[in-house]
């Protein structure tokens, strides 16, 4: 098969670098886009590892986990980067991940202790909109409004799954009612975050499910003050994004080295202004000017990985049923 691929001209470069060890990282698509953290991370790590870091996009975060299950122990990946706490319990059940211990001074709210996964950034989900557009301050108002939103599929995307958890955390048993009423606000459900955000920027919707830190991208990188997020009085669900090392890796030492690098200053410094999330370990230089502040503990919603795993299936059925109408 390799020879067929070679014939197809796909791996023409691999022969030239055959002697350099290759570390393969599966991640979500937006991480490796031109404006994402990927290019800078690759350059910085390759400068210190004398290896070839190959980061491969495999859809959005939740699709990543499916990919891991599909490839099982045959996977060519060494590291999976981009799962979150809502998927962690499910990921650990696969028995495909190797415990690691990466010590760092984590700035993740509520601290961190999990022996399989290492956090690299975190943030709060929020609906991003244009400044000046009518705004809403909770899901009930959003559902009653005529605002058009784009959301992501909770089966393929971590923001999509986060939204399910958000509604559950804020409304509990009434979540179903909220979804029924939100149905007519939803323009479309995309497979991943990139598609949804792209559609929003092209004017295909009034709001998009993203993060409280997304407007900072427009403000800092583009000097564009036209984007803001709708602050919800019921609080915002949090996401902690994590990476894990596969048991099947053929580069265990290099994989550990990458995870250590991931929580180091170099990597963490890249995160705020490329992935537009809060760094998991605050870099010595601090956060850039204009970067938003963390919310109060009262407004920060999150389920533990095990609670999220318990809620997930029912929440998903509820969501599918409401949106099939």
């Amino acid at each position, binding site marked *: 098969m390799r020879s067929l691929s070679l014939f197809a001209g796909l791996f023409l470069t691999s022969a030239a670098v055959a002697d350099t060890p290759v570390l393969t990282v599966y991640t979500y698509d937006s991480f490796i886009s031109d404006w994402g953290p990927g290019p800078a991370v690759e350059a910085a790590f390759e400068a210190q590892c004398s290896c070839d870091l190959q980061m491969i996009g495999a859809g959005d975060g939740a699709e990543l986990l499916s990919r891991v299950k599909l490839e099982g122990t045959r996977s060519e990946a060494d590291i999976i980067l981009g799962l979150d706490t809502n998927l962690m319990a499910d990921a650990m059940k696969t028995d495909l991940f190797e415990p690691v211990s990466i010590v760092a001074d984590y700035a993740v709210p509520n601290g961190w202790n999990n022996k399989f996964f290492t956090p690299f950034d975190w943030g709060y989900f929020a609906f991003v909109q244009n400044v000046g557009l009518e705004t809403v301050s909770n899901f009930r108002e959003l559902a009653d409004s005529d605002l058009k939103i784009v959301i992501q*599929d909770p*089966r*393929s995307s971590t923001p999509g799954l986060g939204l399910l958890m958000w509604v559950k955390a804020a409304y509990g048993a009434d979540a179903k009612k909220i979804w029924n009423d939100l149905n007519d606000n939803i323009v*479309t459900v995309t497979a991943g975050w990139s598609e949804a955000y792209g559609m929003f920027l092209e004017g295909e919707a009034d709001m998009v499910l993203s993060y409280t830190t997304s407007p900072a991208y427009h403000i800092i990188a583009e000097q564009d003050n036209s984007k803001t997020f709708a602050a919800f009085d019921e609080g915002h669900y949090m996401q902690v994004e994590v990476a894990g090392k596969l048991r099947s890796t053929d580069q265990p030492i290099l994989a550990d080295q990458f995870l250590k690098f991931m929580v180091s200053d170099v990597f963490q410094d890249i995160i705020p202004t490329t992935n537009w999330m809060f760094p998991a370990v605050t870099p010595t230089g601090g956060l850039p000017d204009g970067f938003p502040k963390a919310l109060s503990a009262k407004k920060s919603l999150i389920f533990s990985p095990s609670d999220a795993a318990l809620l997930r299936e029912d929440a998903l059925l509820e969501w599918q*049923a409401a*949106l099939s109408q």
Partner: protein
Amino acid sequence: MAGSVIAISLRLIFGGAVITALLTFSFGTAAVVALRGHGFGPLLPTDLSAIRFTLWQALVSAFLSVSVAIPVARALSRQSFFGRRALITLLGAPFILPVLVGVLGLLSVFGRSGWISELLLFFGLGRLSIYGASGVILAHVFFNLPLATRFILQGWSGVPAERFRLTDSLGANSWSRFLLIEWPMLRGVLPGAFVLIFLLCLTSFTVALAVGGGPKGTTIELAIYQAFRFEFNLGKAASLATIQFGLCGIVALLAFLVPLPKVGDIGLDRLAHQFGARKHRRLDIIWISGAAGFLILPLSAILFRGLGGILSLPGQVFSASITSLLIALISTGVCIFLALGLSLSIAYSRLNTQKIVEGISVLGLSTSPLVVGTGLFLMIFPFVNPASLAIPVTAFVNAMMAMPFALRVLIPAVRDIYNEYLHLRLSLNMGRGIWLMRIVFPRLRRPVGFSAGLVAALSMGDFGVIALFASPDLQTLPLILYRLMGSYQMDQAAAVSVVLVAQSLFLFWIFDRGGRGHTES
């Protein structure tokens, strides 16, 4: 004598093998899927709504395509105008147009930020939104209206002009002409066109993926894909695939009862008649220009947006286009080898046998690529990483999927040659080699070229099985196109579309032209 006995048994073995392969391909993969799935376990409400939506959208799409095609075909059959021939040729294009390209074009015209929305906004009206059922149906009509129009136009061209002249000289008005001539013709053509389009929409995947808009626009095919890629729930994928296979089977049985339209392009460019041409000219112009606009606007939107960007496309597009070419060529080779072999091996059989074989090939039409993909995946999975076989599997599945089209061209072609020339072979006591090389193959050049062109173009644009099997680092043109659309880089996506369409059309043209040889130049 002994030699011919061996030849006959070889022929039977080959024919039998191909038919067994076809049957294994559709029933075998479905059986694997059913064994792996939980059979007909309790269906979730969301599965039921996917089934409902799949059937409903296929019915509406087929109904709209066929009913709009009637006035358009009627107008085309009696009006002569500049570009008529080009327009009729263009009607064949959506059949080989990669689905993603069509969807991208439709989005540029009918999307929330498309041309029509901008126009509506200019007049102070709201934007269009095509995500959901409306988008799925719009895209299905876009792809199938031209197909239906060609089938019905074929029907009109098949009516001898003398009949129109006769009714005319008997002083019949247009209503009685419709009752006496056109309605009987339509009654013969419409059911086949309807069933064929219904079948194509029943197994629709790419359209629902791109514009379905979430659970409300999810077809069963898409649900299979999601169970696979999003949840890696093979059991669920298998259950859904069993349902899909059942549905397709029922419709395929229906398809046995109605004569399906022929694939081909013969005789379409002549005017059927011109009765009523002057009287209905205005109305006809509206139908023709409406249909032409609906077809041409999205295509030109892509050209308009993509042509400028071709030169600045990243290098990966080049290697992807080579991979796509490779897949297309392998599947064309496999498909034509099998289809031609099968057609030749049943050439001496009775007409009934030939009809049965043609019928079996219809199975391929009703086979869902994702059911087959799921089945093959489950078979391969225990042994190797299926992603490493993505290219050969895709090429093979595409070859099998295109078999019905190739067989429907080749079986009648072989039959005609044998009917016409077999007595020549017998009377001259011609040897087998000379018979095949001098008589049969030269006459098969054109149908083989045409069907190879079809297969190559279909395979080039395929986005079904490849989406199921692809590993993140595999790149084909449709995969790149999907990823670019995903990251909303619409200008680059349009540029890749232009490359993809150009490559598909080029392959089609090469094969078709090669088949025509010097005979017409």
